[in-house]
């Protein structure tokens, strides 16, 4: 399939439609659609983009779509990919939002939501475990995790403030490493 803007949009529309249950599902979907079926990018590139998408702000699925779209056809390709990705999500929610007030009163719908809420807790637990394995790798990172966790749970500090504090910590840490002359990370 040719890499036209329309085809990029269409492909990401399909991936966006199949993307149920959180952003982590996007990787296998992109592997199947972009690497196997269309041969637009290779697996190594996809893995590199995934790692980058996780280390910058924003939704992983959105970041990854923009990276791949940009690689395929520059800035316009990036816009085509992200538009395709979010169109199904947007339509679905706008339609549901209209009827939600009505259906949420139904007993069995409440039951389903209650159950899905438990399922989401499991998915959050799995996401924490996945991120934990990649991020909490020594005493220092455990300390960062623990302090942020406490400030967030007990003091309800705004998440943005804690993230900005972590950014400063990272800059200061590297500044001290550079000054002490050892260079690079430990």
């Amino acid at each position: 399939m040719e890499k036209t803007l329309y085809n990029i949009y269409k492909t990401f529309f399909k991936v966006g439609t199949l993307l149920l249950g959180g952003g982590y599902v996007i990787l296998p979907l992109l592997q199947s659609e972009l690497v196997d079926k269309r041969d637009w990018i290779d697996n190594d590139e996809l893995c590199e983009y995934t790692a980058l998408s996780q280390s910058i702000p924003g939704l992983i699925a959105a970041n990854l779509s923009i990276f791949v779209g940009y690689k395929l056809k520059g800035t316009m390709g990036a816009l085509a990919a992200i538009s395709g990705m979010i169109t199904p999500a947007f339509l679905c929610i706008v339609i549901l939002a209209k009827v939600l007030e009505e259906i949420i009163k139904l007993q069995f719908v409440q039951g389903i939501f209650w159950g899905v809420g438990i399922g989401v807790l499991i998915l959050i637990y799995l996401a924490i475990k996945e991120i934990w394995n990649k991020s909490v790798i020594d005493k220092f990172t455990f300390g960062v995790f623990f302090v942020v966790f406490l400030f967030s749970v007990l003091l309800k500090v705004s998440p943005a403030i804690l993230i900005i504090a972590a950014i400063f910590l990272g800059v200061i840490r590297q500044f001290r490493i550079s000054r002490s002359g050892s260079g690079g990370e430990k």
Partner: protein
Amino acid sequence: MIYLQLFLEFFHIGLFSFGGGYATLPFLFHIAETKDWYSAKQLTDMIAISSITPGPVGVNVATFAGYTTSGILGALIATTSVILPSIIIVIIISKLLQQFKHNPYVRSVIYTIKPAGCGLLAAVGVNMFLNNINLFGMVLFVALLILSFIKKRDPLFYLGVSALFGLLYSFVGFIK
């Protein structure tokens, strides 16, 4: 001006959430506590809906919050705002890919920011757990947890099983 507020709130969520879709949850709960756009209970329902509808959870909740506060235009603004930082940042990084990957300051910030994102998400997990759990939920949670230890499964598996038990539960009439 509700549109400007929606833009600012969701733009800053897109800018500061690290670690995937659920990383937006701490910010969304913070909105529930500080603004009257939606309650924590409504947000929990929204998260459940987002999990069974297409698209990233963060985008779904943004659309939802925008729509409930100010209709279709609000939905468009909130959705665009949450992905706008990604568009700007990813395009800049794509242009400077090689320098970005090897810059020691960038690497150091990534090193400290990842566990911070993990801590935020863990805090949300604990809060949601304490707010929503009852005896039957605890049993279901532990059962699914054990299943997750045995074998890695598709996220849809957990959502499907828990939705089914929720449905049964509502027929038996034990709900809240």
